[in-house]
């Protein structure tokens, strides 16, 4: 499975597996870890990262691995960046959000404005699979992720949600 993912060169750089004491260097390092986690899971289409099962923390080829504390540091940074979401408080399973909900929220609202959906209604299904959404960033998006994005819009007063017959028929009214 891992053969289909091409590991970036920094993955063979031993210091990558030591959390750097120098702040600026650590910033760079955390960025590289975020990039790696995101691209690995996206390219292999893995939706959930299970912390104790994740093969990324150890590189046998160079004999280096992140210790459990360091894994926590990397994971906390990843979740904080908005690209990951803990399934629960045990912090063992992390949902990968390849698009940040904030970005999707903005994209959805821009699309709604451009396509005359202000003061009009569409369903959750139409949002990820409708004809009007061809080429949009939220086309084919995971329903969970969409709902996160819509919740953000709701919070901003830019839309309101209401129940339909099934979850995918739940409606959204944009303002």
């Amino acid at each position: 499975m891992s053969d289909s993912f091409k590991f970036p060169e920094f993955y063979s750089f031993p210091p990558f597996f030591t959390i750097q004491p120098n702040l600026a260097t650590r910033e760079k390092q955390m960025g590289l870890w975020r990039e790696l986690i995101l691209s690995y899971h996206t390219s292999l289409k893995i939706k959930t990262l299970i912390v104790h099962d994740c093969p990324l923390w150890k590189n046998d080829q160079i004999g280096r691995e992140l210790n459990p504390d360091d894994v926590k540091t990397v994971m906390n940074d990843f979740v904080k960046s908005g690209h990951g979401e803990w399934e629960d408080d045990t912090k063992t399973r992390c949902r990968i959000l390849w698009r940040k909900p904030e970005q999707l929220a903005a994209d959805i609202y821009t699309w709604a404005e451009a396509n005359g959906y202000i003061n009009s209604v569409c369903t959750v299904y139409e949002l990820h699979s409708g004809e009007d959404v061809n080429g949009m960033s939220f086309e084919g998006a995971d329903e969970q992720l969409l709902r996160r994005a819509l919740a953000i819009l709701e919070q901003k007063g830019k839309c309101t949600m209401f129940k339909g017959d099934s979850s995918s028929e739940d409606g959204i009214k944009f303002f």
Partner: protein
Amino acid sequence: MAHRRGRAGIGALKKKGETSKFTKKAEEIKTTSLKSAMETVKQLEIKLTKFAKAHHKTIAKDPAFRHKFLSMCAPLGVDPLTTKKSFWSFLQMGDFYHELAVKVAEVCFAYRSRNGGIMSIKEVQSVLLRRGTKFRLNEVVTNYSADDIVVAIGKLKQLGSGFRTVKVGGTQMILSVPTELDNDHVQVIQLAQNAGGGITLNSVSDMIGWEDDRVKRAMDLLLSEGMAWIDRYEGLEYYWFPSVWKDSFVM
């Protein structure tokens, strides 16, 4: 030699106010020497301009030839890179080196967070190659050499940009940060380069013979500048330098 009394001797001359004659003669000789020196330089410049006119195509296409040409210009105080309107503008070297300098600076900035602001010219070249960046000199797409990059950095340096080159072992590196690297720092980086990987503080003292304080001081700076990364493995601390790790290392 016996002092002559009377008419000869500086003292006598001074007395007689004839120093002015000598001063005048000395000035005359100076002027003539200067005149003939300037004449020589002028002749050389004429020869150089004829050369440039005759060989401008090769100068544009061949980096090695171009390098030789520039080394002929330097001692004559001729700067074909000048952007002011001059005879030399027909070579368009100013534009070429300006373009090159901009692109080299871009690469250095892009990679600064990874290597701390020190990068080998070779690595810059391979990045530009991978990006497919091309440069034109006198309407012709040209190859550019490490020497060309050194000239371009020289231009940047003139503009007070903080860019400069530093030699680590046999490798030319570009420094794009104001950090002052002294010989100690360069030696440590060179050690890492020779080792082909991470080095410990002990290995530095073993190989160069410095006391621990001195090693630590040098390494601390390199770490704080982001030029060195730390690797904790089996109870030991190794220091790795992205700028010299692997020829084609790209982070």
